[in-house]
């Protein structure tokens, strides 16, 4: 910067001044046409592979920044039951009449990856785990938010119970509606991250993810998988249904 100022300071001959003016004009015209190009052919610029690469790289960078920002002790605000949003909105990548029906009798939660005891869990076994509940705000990636009440076992308790490798990087989820997602281990161990079996004190209805969903008040809604059928622990980045299409992976609140 200092050098540029110095350059400006040098007295110039009329001839070189003229050259500089021309250069400047040329630069200006190029800048302007670049700007115009950007505006007029917005699509091609947006779709250009190099632009996409930069945007994805920035999203990975934002994953890391959010990992640093994440305070494992910091609790999401909780609300009185009177603040619960009624009716609580249904939201998925399909319509409400396509909600999967999971048979409680046949249901088994599959476990895989860096877990010591990988035997499948039945619903009665899961329901016997210690429970807690929370009234927290669900924030959708679209921008809207709604307050709801979820009950279930702290996910940390479950991970400890099955002997999951708590030093691993990721916990992945597969769902009965073919949805899949994954979260960082720090969030999985957060005290408010629940393996939820109830909504508003009742068995989780199909539209909210029967027989269970992962409730994470420190992440956006799409990071809260419903109808979970398999959980795995891994050090290999697992991605997710929306994440693979471009939603930011960490998506912490």
């Amino acid at each position, binding site marked *: *910067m*200092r050098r*540029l*100022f110095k350059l*400006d*300071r040098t*007295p110039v001959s009329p001839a070189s001044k003229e050259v500089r003016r021309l250069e*400047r004009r040329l630069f*200006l015209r190029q*800048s302007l046409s670049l700007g115009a190009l950007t505006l007029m052919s*917005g*699509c091609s610029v*947006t*779709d250009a592979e190099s632009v996409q690469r*930069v*945007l*994805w790289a*920035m*999203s990975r960078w*934002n994953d890391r920044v959010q990992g640093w*920002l*994440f*305070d494992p002790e*910091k*609790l*999401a*605000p909780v609300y009185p039951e009177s603040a619960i949003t009624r009716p609580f909105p249904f939201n998925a990548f399909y319509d409400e009449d396509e909600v999967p029906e999971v048979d409680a009798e046949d249901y088994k939660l599959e476990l895989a990856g860096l877990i010591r005891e990988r035997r499948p869990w039945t619903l009665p076994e899961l329901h016997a785990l210690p429970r807690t509940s929370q009234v927290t*705000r669900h*924030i*959708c*990636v*679209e*921008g*809207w*938010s709604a307050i709801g009440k979820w009950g279930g076992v702290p996910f940390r308790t479950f991970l400890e119970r099955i002997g999951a490798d708590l030093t691993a990087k990721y916990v992945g989820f597969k769902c009965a509606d073919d949805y899949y997602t994954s979260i960082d281990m720090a969030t999985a161990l957060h005290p408010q991250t629940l393996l939820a079996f109830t909504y508003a004190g009742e068995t989780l209805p199909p539209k909210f993810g029967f027989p269970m969903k992962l409730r994470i*008040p*420190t992440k956006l809604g799409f990071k809260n998988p419903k109808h979970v059928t398999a959980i795995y622990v891994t050090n290999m980045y697992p991605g997710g249904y*929306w994440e693979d*299409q*471009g*939603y*930011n992976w960490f998506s*912490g*609140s």
Partner: protein
Amino acid sequence: MAAPETFDRPAESTAQAHPLTVRITHWINAVAILVMILSGWRIYNASPLLDFKFPRDLTLGGWLGGALQWHFAAMWLLALNGIVYLVYGFISGHFRRDFLPVTVTAILRDIGEALRGKLPHELGVYNAVQRTAYLSVIVLGVILILSGLAIWKPVQLQELAALFGGYEGARWVHFLAMVVLCLFVLVHVIMVMLVPKTFLPMWTGRAPPGPRESNEEKPA
């Protein structure tokens, strides 16, 4: 940092209107703001606060996920560039010298003169209305970034979010601040079109030649 307006210029040369740092940060800011607004409109459309959506063709990103990628990439450009500008503005004396003082009397006088078409536009010297506008838009930028951070991190930065009335409050503040910013940009661009001689100096830093007795620069 050297105060750039103190350099000796040949007598026939032109006066400096804008320091290099101001010019660079201005145009980076213009690009960042454009990306933030256009991608922000697409994000808004995913869950509108009002019974109104922005025309799709005016938005950036193609879909919500794409718009979010643009928004969360350009936010770094906007914030880092803004920090460089603020630090420069304080250290170099740009704020103190070019934006202050600004008094109610001066604002009223300049509005009066502007309405009578008598307000002189001197390159390198801001009138009271300009000073007010430019100072306000800096504050507006800070509000936009802080409310944006509150929306992005309503749990980790919940104390900040609380200042805006929580997550939903921060969404409204962010949206309304965007509207005010759009009005500023609109007026700003219209003024440049009305006084076109102000456009080139924002690139070159030099005011066009001409008698400039009224624009004697104070020694820094």
